[in-house]
């Protein structure tokens, strides 16, 4: 294991030292003893020195072993570790632009969406309180990703990480879809994988805007509720995530609507003149003026639809992505089988 061993008089002292040195998210961690870290490595069957990728701006090559250390610290169980590994591998792909999203004032978090049987087998929640607390797999996988960003790629708050606001998803943000509630293809299938494939997709998510509509079952009326939230994200988004709750999903699917029809309608509906964009938001790169119509997204396919959340309540959400959804592209990676 190519990591320095640090000696402390007690576990409490180790925890306090890690917090003081800025090696945590501000919360206490599980001390990463060699024994604990080795149990993760043994579970994955992977070599600790195997590189997962390199963050070129800060010049850091992230290895399986370093991700194991940070996963232990986050409170993961060994069976979560393959998910964290693939999420980090995905985040290190050049098109994700990890340095940009972790340094920028825009304050993106990393939303990890897990699809495939592993989501259920390790207990990742996609239902009630999907973005909230109470589920160890969600809480610690997302936290492990954040601790890797802090320690393995060097993005500490106030140093490299210059987020103006940030948001709570920067502590932890890992979910699965509510496949029981969804009549449609999963995100993993939309990305070309088999429904039984274990995959994780990472998004550079800004804070979600909740969209409420309990007063209609009509598809067009439901989708028009998203308009202001889409406008708040800015014009011509390259990619933007729509979290549809089960109740909205049920109304849409019972009316015969699929993801393609929803995306097409959303694209046609969320449009306004450049004068309206210019007076209602600050578009990147300058001020829009005139009567030309500009859509909220570049194309219907720019809307990535996932189904998640509890069965009760008509609350969906819009999650804009960093840099207009084009400067950081979401990345999907398979989660490797373990030899354990």
């Amino acid at each position, binding site marked *: 294991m190519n990591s320095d*061993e640090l000696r*402390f008089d*007690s576990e409490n002292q180790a925890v306090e030292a890690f917090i003081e040195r800025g090696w945590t998210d501000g919360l206490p961690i599980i001390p*990463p003893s060699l024994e604990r870290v080795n149990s993760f490595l043994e579970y994955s069957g992977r070599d600790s020195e195997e590189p997962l990728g390199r963050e070129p701006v800060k010049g850091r090559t992230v290895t399986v072993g370093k991700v194991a250390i940070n996963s232990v610290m986050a409170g993961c169980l060994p069976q979560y570790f393959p998910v964290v590994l693939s999420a980090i591998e995905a985040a290190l792909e050049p098109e994700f632009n990890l340095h940009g999203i972790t340094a920028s004032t825009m304050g993106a978090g990393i939303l990890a969406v897990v699809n495939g049987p592993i989501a259920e087998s390790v207990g990742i929640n996609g239902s009630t309180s999907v973005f909230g607390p109470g589920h160890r797999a969600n809480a610690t996988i997302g936290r492990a990703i954040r601790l890797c960003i802090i320690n393995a790629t060097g993005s500490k708050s106030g140093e490299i990480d210059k987020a103006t606001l940030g948001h709570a998803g920067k502590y932890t943000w890992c979910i699965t879809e509510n496949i029981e509630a969804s009549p449609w293809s999963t995100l993993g299938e939309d990305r070309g994988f088999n429904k039984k494939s274990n995959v994780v997709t990472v998004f550079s998510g800004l804070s979600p805007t909740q969209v409420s509509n309990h007063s209609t079952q009509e598809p067009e009326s439901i989708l028009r509720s998203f308009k202001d939230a889409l406008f708040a994200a800015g014009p011509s988004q390259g990619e933007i995530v729509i979290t549809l709750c089960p109740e909205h999903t049920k109304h849409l699917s019972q009316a015969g609507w699929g993801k393609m029809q929803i995306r097409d309608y959303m694209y046609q509906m969320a449009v306004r003149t450049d004068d309206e964009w210019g007076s209602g938001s600050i578009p990147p790169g300058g001020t829009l003026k005139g009567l030309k119509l500009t859509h909220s997204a570049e194309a219907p396919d720019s809307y990535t639809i996932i189904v998640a959340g509890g069965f009760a309540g008509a609350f969906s959400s819009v999650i804009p992505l960093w840099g207009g959804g084009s400067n950081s592209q979401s990345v999907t990676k398979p989660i490797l089988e373990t030899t354990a």
Partner: protein
Amino acid sequence: MANSGQVYVLDPRVLPDIPDSMLAERPESLDGSTVGLLANGKRNSEELLEQVYEVLSESFKLKRAVPDNKGNASRPCPPNLLAELSEVCDVVITASGD
């Protein structure tokens, strides 16, 4: 594990394989220099660089400016643009305007 005795834990950090920051070597004088002005696509970045060039012109006999714009502040500068600038410029100044 008990909170007594010695506890060994592993360092979670990955250390950089490049220096944290690299400043280009500073020339003793800019007299006779071709100065690249590389804007990053943010609003006002070109204007800021033009003014920097004007200020430098008051102190040095600059040969000429080579303005360019990498077009996207969120992405690294395209390697071919860097290569072109390093071919014709003695120094390059870049800026982040907003």
